[in-house]
């Protein structure tokens, strides 16, 4: 955690903290009756802990850590399917490194690699394309994982493979979308959410209009935010100002990077290559309508689900969570990570049991990294 004097602009940070405190008092938020502000993006969760913003703001503000960490919401069955594909004869399975340690029912991709499967960590789907070009006698599969920031990259890669006729390249598509789980959380009668910090780089692709329903249908404010601590404080202040004024709008604090209508070339590639699944399973949240993407039939030759007959078949393939794992309750903000019986015992970043402990964007890993034993005692 940093001290506010180490911020790029300490004077502005202090002014924003006072503004947040003034608005929180005006709204009547207290430690016992706090405003619940959900930061949707895992990158924001990480930044809030890194800079200690949860401790710096007025104690009438409670950050609820949202489902915006793609690795954290990956169901165990998807990891099992990756391993099933990776262990096929002749396959080179490529993935972002983040997915390597996510535990499935049959262990992680890291463990499958150790058992001999040819699994390679790449930085970009472009690397996977290049591996396919260099290995024409092997089937190169890329694990398409992530939200709308990442989805264009695999769409462009599939378009490139189709242009080149690269028949030994395919994508195992598990891309998911941000707005649908927000709708699911807002429809959940157990959730109390007063406002949202919207994701920055996802919004750079999709723009701000996909969030209109949050304000218009549910009457909640959302502010799309950047990743600097000042950005986050400013966004919290903007959410509070809306609540204090009785407004509910989509505001864009990160307009220097996020255009209102997103990135047209990326959106065109996404809609050319992908279509929505009727529903998709999220770890800890269950099935959410229209929240996942699959490859369109026109690109079936590059769809690993079609090629290998492995893939999402709905809730019938659900794998139960490990005993005592409370990722779902943490993910929906019902409990703090430290209230999970496995936190720091059966589940640590070195030996994660639940997905929230795997990635630095997961709430549990962030608690552990920046709270440590102190976090466990709190």
């Amino acid at each position: 955690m940093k001290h506010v004097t180490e911020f790029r602009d300490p004077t502005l940070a202090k002014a924003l903290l006072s503004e947040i405190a003034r608005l929180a008092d005006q709204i009547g938020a207290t430690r016992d009756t706090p405003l619940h502000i959900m930061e949707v993006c895992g990158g924001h969760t990480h930044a809030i802990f890194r800079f200690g913003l949860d401790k710096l703001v007025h104690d009438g503000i409670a950050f609820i850590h949202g489902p915006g960490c793609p690795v954290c919401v990956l169901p165990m069955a998807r990891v099992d399917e990756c391993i099933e594909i990776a262990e096929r004869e002749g396959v080179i399975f490529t993935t972002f490194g983040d997915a390597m340690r996510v535990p499935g029912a049959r262990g992680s991709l890291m463990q499958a690699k150790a058992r001999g499967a040819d699994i390679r960590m790449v930085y970009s789907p472009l690397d996977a394309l290049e591996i396919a070009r260099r290995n024409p006698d092997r089937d190169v599969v890329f694990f398409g994982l992530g939200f709308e920031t990442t989805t264009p990259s695999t769409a462009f890669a599939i378009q490139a493979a189709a242009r080149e006729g690269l028949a030994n390249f395919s994508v195992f598509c598990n891309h998911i979308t941000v707005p649908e789980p927000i709708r699911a959380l807002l429809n959940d009668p157990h959730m109390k959410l007063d406002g949202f910090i919207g994701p920055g780089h996802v919004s750079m692709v999709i723009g701000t209009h996909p969030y209109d329903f949050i304000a218009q249908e549910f009457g909640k404010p959302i502010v799309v935010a950047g990743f600097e601590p000042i950005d986050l404080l400013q966004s919290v202040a903007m959410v509070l100002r809306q609540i204090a004024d009785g407004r509910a709008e989509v505001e864009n604090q990160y307009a220097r990077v996020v255009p209102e209508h997103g990135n047209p070339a990326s959106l065109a590639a996404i809609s050319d290559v992908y279509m929505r699944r009727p529903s998709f399973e999220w770890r800890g949240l269950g099935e959410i309508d229209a929240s996942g993407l699959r490859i369109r039939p026109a690109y079936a030759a590059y769809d690993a689900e079609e090629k290998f007959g492995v893939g999402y078949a709905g809730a019938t393939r659900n794998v139960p969570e490990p005993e005592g794992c409370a990722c779902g309750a943490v993910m929906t903000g019902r409990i703090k990570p430290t209230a999970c019986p496995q936190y720091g015992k059966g589940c640590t970043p070195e030996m994660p049991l639940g997905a929230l402990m795997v990635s630095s964007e997961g709430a549990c890993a962030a608690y552990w990294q920046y709270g440590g034993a102190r976090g466990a005692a709190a």
Partner: protein
Amino acid sequence: MCLGIPGQITAITDESRLMAMADVSGVRREVSLAPVADRPLCELVGQWALIHVGFAMAIIDEDEAARTLEALRDLGEAQETLEAMAEGAKALEGTQ
């Protein structure tokens, strides 16, 4: 893993495939300009971009690039991305 990292576009490497060389914190990496190719590619040389998994997702100004890089370094995300790029290079050779 949804965060982009600022990089400076230094040269166009393959005009037809919209590929360019970028300098990301001193590491040279070939990236795709597909998301920002709504203008002549030569105009992009020298510009700063937010690069995510090998794609230039948005053109940003130099000050924004510096501030974003500082925030990412603070979070350890910049180092993670550079390590991932190095892993990607090894994956091409099958030497991981």
